[in-house]
């Protein structure tokens, strides 16, 4: 039963090989989808190309459905799977900063690496920027970011033990109903965005 490495079912010496292989597949798919082009990525914000939304949602839903079935069939032990913790303000402020970074830079870190691999010089600058950004964060950590990052400004209900909360819990519905709802929402979004795309003139890229 998975996850394999976390339970020492396969040795940690395989860990890095798996990392490399998964990374290669990840990079390959991103490039194939056209995520190595910042203009294609930015299209989602201007309505001329919704490839980001399509790939992103299809991937999230595929993995979500897969994990639910893996969990049901006991192929994977979900108690060992990492659930991203929720630090309310830290996540929101970080997300907003990343949003501005996205519209300015045209990449996110993963796609930036992918674009750099096929020779996009702007992607190399973007990656350089990430280095600078993380360095600024690290150096200014105590002074500026620590209390926000550690969630000291979060409402009480998020503090004690509920960091690993899942969205269906906070909405008060069951996981399965939420998953079904998400599938329907994604399908609707796919249809709607396809309509929008038709009406927006594509810039040449």
């Amino acid at each position, binding site marked *: 039963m998975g*996850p394999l490495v*976390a*339970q*020492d079912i396969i040795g940690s010496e395989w860990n890095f090989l798996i990392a490399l292989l998964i990374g290669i597949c990840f990079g390959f798919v991103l490039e194939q989808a056209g995520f190595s082009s910042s203009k294609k990525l930015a299209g989602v914000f201007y309505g001329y190309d919704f490839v980001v939304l399509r790939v992103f949602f299809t991937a999230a*839903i595929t993995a979500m*459905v897969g994990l*639910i*079935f893996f*969990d*049901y069939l*006991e192929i994977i*032990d*979900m*108690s*060992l*799977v*990492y659930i*991203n*913790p929720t630090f309310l303000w830290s996540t929101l402020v970080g997300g907003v900063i990343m949003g501005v970074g996205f519209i300015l830079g045209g990449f996110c*870190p993963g796609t930036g690496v992918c674009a750099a691999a096929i020779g996009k010089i702007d992607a190399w600058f973007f990656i350089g920027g990430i280095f600078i950004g993380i360095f600024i964060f690290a150096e200014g950590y105590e002074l500026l970011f620590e209390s926000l990052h550690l969630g000291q400004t979060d409402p009480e209900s998020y503090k004690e033990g509920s960091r690993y909360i899942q969205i269906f819990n906070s909405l008060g519905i*069951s*996981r*399965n*109903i939420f*998953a*079904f709802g998400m*599938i*329907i929402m994604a*399908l609707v979004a*796919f*249809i709607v965005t*396809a309509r929008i795309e038709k009406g927006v003139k594509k810039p040449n890229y």
Partner: protein
Amino acid sequence: MDKRYIIPATVLVILGAIILFLPPKDNTKTELTADQLYLDIIESTRFISTDEIADMIIKRDPSIQLIDVRSAEEYAKYALPGALNIPLNEILDDKWEAYLDQEARTNVFYSNGSLRADQAWILCRRRGFVNNTIMVGGLNSWVEDILKPQKPADTEGEQEWEIYSFRVAASQYFLGGNQVQTSDVPTAAPVVKRKKKMVQGGC
């Protein structure tokens, strides 16, 4: 809309509908079923005799950890050397989990008789913990067998006499000033099981 998307979209909706009817997830997977628990209860290896315990204490065997499941007051009055006090009413507390759910040592539960130790054992076993055992007869047997051993009849076999001489030696060991150790023996920090370690986060 493009016709070629109809089939994948339908498949997705069907999968979603199946998910809708999956049973809600139970978080009790590590807990044992009644059948499994029964099979473990009738297994005699979950018991350790007072003689074996006495021997291991004298030899300072590091592979066992005695756990006194009686109340704190009883523990304060008298306890076996090196024993840790986890009262039965606290056995489900999270703070003891690292001691009870581990693979490094064998825990030996004891109470006055066998009853509370057995209850503690069953509660732990049901939670999926291994490496826990019970001292048969508890402290009552301990006093009778180890501290006040009865001389066997002259007609008894050699084996009985061997046990007796061990018990006499043991009783001298335990009554001969070693009693001070009861509660101030430091118990080593529990080795937290690696397996349960949560995976560290991604990006």
